[in-house]
């Protein structure tokens, strides 16, 4: 850094530097705080309406377990959307990874940790493969992300149907089901929830505090500026989509562990649910803005809504309307707050 100054350094300048705002102040003003408050508000509302049922620890555990797989998907999706991209293939990659993992475990045979690790490895590899395909086509061939991932969605789902003949694979090592699938840490927290939160925390920290995270924001905010600054944009995009694919692979493995079947037909709208979670959490579809904490809130808001509506007894056909309305409202509120910040 060359030293360009008018005169000799002026020590007085140093003393006038503004101090960094204290932690609690940053928390209150944080970008994901309003969405967090909305989540808290929903929990309060449902607790007031049906306290016995809703506030039950078993119910909380169920909500968290139901949301765990989506949280893993939303983690990868957060990175993708911050780069101003999109990944529509995550649900299909989830299914594909579960399918190849189940096939591999059955081929190896047995019911021990060894075969479970084989299954995990195959699932991650399957997800990574689709992620790399997405990344290369988007970054190098310059095909729009929407188009590429729509294509890989079809291919991954189609491949799953070809491999299984359209029939769910329902043979899964029993040990996998009893440990990761339905087992709990300290008798209380399901392992699925622990794993999902661990993933969210690790990748949340990476996004917020590492160079990889900063490059993600930079590429999303102004790809050309990032290029001119010497950031290897193409390589970075490939890594981001590869990450999303690998996490979808992990999600497929977790889903397989939980349901002991590949549930091919149950993931058609997972991509939209993950995108919705990320957007509700405050990430902009135009890139450059967003936090993983926001995505965590974004995952739990629909989960709490759906759970709460069933408990309160809302007619199932009305539930979708209500969930949709609340989601639009929550994002609108967040937008109002943002716009006031950017008023110049």
């Amino acid at each position, binding site marked *: 850094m060359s030293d360009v100054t008018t005169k000799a350094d002026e020590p007085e300048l140093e003393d006038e530097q503004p101090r960094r705002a204290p932690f609690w102040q940053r928390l209150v003003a944080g970008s994901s705080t309003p969405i967090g408050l909305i989540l808290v508000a929903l929990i309060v509302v449902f607790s007031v*309406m049906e306290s016995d049922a809703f506030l039950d620890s078993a119910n909380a555990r169920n909500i968290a377990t139901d949301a765990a797989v989506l949280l893993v998907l939303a983690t990868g999706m957060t990175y993708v959307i911050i780069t101003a991209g999109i990944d529509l293939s995550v649900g299909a990659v989830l299914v594909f990874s579960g399918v190849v993992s189940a096939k591999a475990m059955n081929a190896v045979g047995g019911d021990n940790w060894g075969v479970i690790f084989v299954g995990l490895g195959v699932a991650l590899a399957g997800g990574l493969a689709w992620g790399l395909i997405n990344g290369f086509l988007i970054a190098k061939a310059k095909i729009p992300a929407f188009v590429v991932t729509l294509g890989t969605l079809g291919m991954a789902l189609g491949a799953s149907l070809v491999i299984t003949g*359209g029939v769910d694979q329902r043979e899964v090592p029993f040990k996998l089901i009893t440990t990761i699938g339905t087992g709990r840490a300290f008798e209380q927290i399901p392992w699925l929830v622990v794993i999902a939160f661990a993933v969210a925390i690790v990748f949340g920290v990476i996004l917020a505090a590492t160079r990889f995270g900063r490059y993600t924001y930079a590429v999303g905010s102004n790809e050309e500026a990032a290029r001119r600054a010497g950031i290897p944009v193409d390589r970075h995009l490939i890594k981001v989509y590869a990450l999303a694919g690998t996490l979808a692979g992990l999600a497929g493995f977790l889903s397989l562990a939980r349901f002991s079947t590949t549930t091919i037909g149950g993931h058609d709208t997972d991509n939209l649910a993950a995108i919705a979670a990320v957007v509700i959490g405050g990430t902009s579809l135009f890139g450059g803005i967003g936090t993983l904490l926001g995505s965590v809130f974004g995952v739990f808001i629909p989960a709490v809504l*759906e*759970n709460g509506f*069933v408990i309160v007894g*809302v007619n199932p056909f009305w539930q979708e309307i*209500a969930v949709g309305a609340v989601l639009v409202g929550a994002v609108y509120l967040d937008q109002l707050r943002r716009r006031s910040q950017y008023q110049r």
Partner: protein
Amino acid sequence: MARKTWIVAALMAVLAFGVAACGDDDDEGGSSGGSASSSGGKKNYKMTLVAGVKGDEFYITMSCGAQAKAKELGVTLDFQGPDKFDASLQTPVVNAVAAKKPDAVLIAPTDTKAMYAPIKQLADGGTKVALVDTTLEQADFAVSQIASDNEGGGREAAKTLAELIGGKGKVFVVNVKPGISTTDARGKGFEEGAKSAGLTYVGQDYSNDEPAQAASIVKATLAKHPDLKGIFATNLFSAEGAASGIREAGKLGDVKIVGFDAGPKQVEDLKGGTVQALIAQRPAEIGADGVEQAFNALTDKPTEKKIGTGFVSLTKENLDQNQDALYKASC
């Protein structure tokens, strides 16, 4: 600006509450869940019917029959169900229902194995469980399993189809997906019946409970076996799709279809001649029996572990006499 935010937040809360209140099947508002008084007299039991999939007329008709019985017995019954017939979608619904700790739940499990854990969790919480239509591999904890004799239904379908195509020829089955007790049984019963009736059974394929998929399967099978004579579709969506497939392939009249279930679309197909016969179950009866068995369990009366309900074989000719066997899209 902050004002605007508060107004929007308030509107949102009103909307959410409003929808919840309007859409609420229960009469109660924000009460704490338990019954008011249980001293002597009739206790107002709360039950939930969890369908296999939301928009299916079979389950809607079941819920109508269940509602009627519930009213008779002074039971409050509400209806829930997943968007698609899949265990990963039905599980969150069951979990949420479990939180309410209803007195009893009538449920059609979407997978014989995968749904065991969440339903067992429900039962462990004290809720009486009646399995309606489909069942689980391990069902001992349920107070009752009520379903049509699906294997018998399959055999009946084979008999009907044999008559329609003149006693011989190639026949194919459009099934749903393996792991569903009812449709597995129908497929099995049909295969046995077809073989003993001397028909050429060319196989079965799975529609995944999607009409569109059923249609493509049918067209693909026709391409492979142009001399196909008959199709048996094992459930409502599969029958709908199979009929579309035949129509699209231009084979109306050449290929006879026997469908399972009598939803409004299928009855139309029957009247229109795309489908020649429908094996209708008695979903309303299944629903009513489910409520009754659960009620018996709650009031310490004897229960029946297994109940088999019957069929009606519908054709264009006998349609008028059997109006009450048709499934409804709403009560």
